[in-house]
């Protein structure tokens, strides 16, 4: 007997002729995720990916934890791979399932016979394996409708797999199959969640952060990197560009009407982000905005910020409430970092009474009071890039 990990593709199975591309991307991401844990053979057949560790001392729990974060997986589990012989299956299933069986009172067995040349039918396999388990574990009862545990026996081309239950995968699509987009990340609760949601749909992430020292702290920058590190557990490494933003912000504050500070700042951020995104072959921008959350996120405000860019701006949180966003941020372990108390985008420049129903014309007029173009170009040119590994 050998212990292995079985991984079931998610929606991938639906993807017609492109399926191979998606599966290749998924296998590549799985390999990256479990890199460093030990040598394995990875194979695939019938929308199942099999990871077979070379060494018996393979750290299965750690590997499963990492695989849980790979997008594009519907379900996964540990399994015993045994010889395709009913006697062997019956002999091996009892010790292999010992721990799992001891934790439950009711179970059922499901057999799947992919290899139709196997001499027994699926119901026959189920009955035999079920009988063998009952004979060895006297506390167990069979419950075909509501079992605490489903034992599965799959008879495949090369071997039979025995497993107890399975875990839900992260769902979504393999990262990298959806093209690249750039997340504008501040350090708050929302943007890491927005990034995670796009990565879940297969988008490869790039990140852009605006730093305004000394109004913002170096710790705020560190915090953003830690947050991206958490997202990188799911998405793989993320390239971040840190934009020096102090001068632009000061200039806005010196030259534009106060109630437009934030809006103009957002518009500048969008312009800079678009240029950075294009350089990085990134096809869209992502923000963590949700309608009405703050003054700059009212619908009229979003209209004025969108007006300055010619690429799609995705806002996956747009219809979500704060508590729904927080729930996800806790799940992906970014919440605790997000609430560290460092200034993100300096509230120093926050107007006392921001415009909540701005018009595009008024914004453009306020902006026309100064020629910002050279400062925008400076900011783009002086952006510093770095790759963030998982944290």
């Amino acid at each position, binding site marked *: 007997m050998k212990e292995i990990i079985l991984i079931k593709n998610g929606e991938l199975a639906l993807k017609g002729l492109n399926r191979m591309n998606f599966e290749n991307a998924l296998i590549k991401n799985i390999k990256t995720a479990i890199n460093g844990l030990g040598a394995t053979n990875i194979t695939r057949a019938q929308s199942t990916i099999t990871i077979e560790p070379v060494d018996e001392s393979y750290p299965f729990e750690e590997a499963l934890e990492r695989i849980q974060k790979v997008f594009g997986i519907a379900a996964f589990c540990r399994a015993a791979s045994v010889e395709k012989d009913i006697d062997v299956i019956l002999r091996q299933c009892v010790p292999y399932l010992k721990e799992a069986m001891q934790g439950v009172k009711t179970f059922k067995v499901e057999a799947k016979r992919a290899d139709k040349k196997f001499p027994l039918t699926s119901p026959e396999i189920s009955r035999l394996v079920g009988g063998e388990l009952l004979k060895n574990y006297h506390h167990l009862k069979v419950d075909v409708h509501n079992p605490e545990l489903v034992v599965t026996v799959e008879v495949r081309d090369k071997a039979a797999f025995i497993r107890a239950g399975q875990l839900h995968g992260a769902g979504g699509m393999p990262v990298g199959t959806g093209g690249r987009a750039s997340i504008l990340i501040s350090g708050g609760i929302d943007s890491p969640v927005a990034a995670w949601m796009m990565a879940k749909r297969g988008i490869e992430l790039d990140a852009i952060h605006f730093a305004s020292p*000394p*109004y*913002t702290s170096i710790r705020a920058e560190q915090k953003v990197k830690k947050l991206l590190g958490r997202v990188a557990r799911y998405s793989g490494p993320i390239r971040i560009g840190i934009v020096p933003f102090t001068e632009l912000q000061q200039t806005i504050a010196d030259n534009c009407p106060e109630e437009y500070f934030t809006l103009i700042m957002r518009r500048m951020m969008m312009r800079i982000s678009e240029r950075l995104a294009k350089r990085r072959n990134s096809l869209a921008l992502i923000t963590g905005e949700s309608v009405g959350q703050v003054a700059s996120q009212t619908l009229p405000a979003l209209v004025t910020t969108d007006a300055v860019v010619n690429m799609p701006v995705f806002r996956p949180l747009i219809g979500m409430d704060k508590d729904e966003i927080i729930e996800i941020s806790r799940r992906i372990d970014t919440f605790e970092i997000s609430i560290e*108390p*460092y200034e993100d985008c300096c509230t*120093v420049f926050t107007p006392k009474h921001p415009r909540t129903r701005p018009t595009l014309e008024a914004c453009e007029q306020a902006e026309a009071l100064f020629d910002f173009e050279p400062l925008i170009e400076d900011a783009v040119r002086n952006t510093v890039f770095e790759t963030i590994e998982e944290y």
Partner: protein
Amino acid sequence: MQDVIYLDNSATTKPCDEAVKAALNAMENCYGNPSSLYEFGMQAEDIVTDARKTIAKALFCREDEVYFTSCGSESNNTAIFGAAELLKRSGKHIVTTAIEHPSVLEPVLALENAGYEVTRIAPDKFGNISLVDIENAVREDTVLVTMMYVNNEVGSILPVEKIKSILQKKGSRALVHIDCVQAFGKLKINAPALGADLISLSAHKIHGIKGAGVLFVKKGVRLSPLIKGGGQEKGLRSGTEAVPAIAAFGAAVKALPDLNNSAEYLLKIKNYCLERLKAFENVVINSPENSSPYILNFSFLGYRSETVLHHLERYFICVSSGSACSKGKGSYVLREMGLNQSVVDSALRLSFSRQTTTADIDKFIDALQLALKLRKSNI
């Protein structure tokens, strides 16, 4: 590396050469376990004993009243929980102040949640604690009075030397704990004369290294330990002694200059700084008169503490912001003093050491001048 102008000596201090040497010696030559039976372990024990002697001398107390811990916070926790446990049958009332260090505030709060009653004396608008308030706070069932000698944020000096006589006058048998972390090595601390039962000290605030603290426990006071185990420090603090940090603590105490001389020097530094700060129209001083010469708290009105802190950082000047960065939060000490939110949000704390020079102050003032070019914030 650029030379740092370190004006944050209440946070920690630069270890003095003597302390570094003593720690190195303990690590390189005497790395045995003080509890081991062989000669080599005894060498480490000797280092600990020697440091204990030095600190006892500095506190005018007996050697067997000095217990090593890992830090000031541990000393405070051991003192407060230990005293409450010891006197739990005599009463359940604690007297403290609203401006204590978190390592006193939090244990006291934990006891309050466990059923103790707590009187927290508020400071006046200058940050001083009044003797009358202490006297009024003490009750028949008071079991512990815990107070700091010098406040870490504004430098106010609390009238701790009077606590014992108040208790005697009132016939109270409450224990007295004094958090001397910001006072030791700066003010004379005569443990018997202070009438303290418990005193907390920390090594790294006086040019020692991080990882060693002391709890003075008056002979006859029997505390229960927070950490149980091998029975080190007469069972009050199990765990192998941090010999290098303890060695450095002893060495740092030996290296302390005469307290009066250094107080005089520090007062010169502080007064010079006060004088130069007067030139700024937007500066208000938050430290009270006659406060510790080592600490100077002021507000740079119109500018958020954090912004100015990071601005100064660019000139390699380290100061502390009394206030956290998010709007509306900020120093609880300044808020307890009843200061305006705008004063609290723009507060900065300078803390000096004997290594601070007037040239450092000049560089700081120059950099602060440039801070006036920063954007004012809407606070």
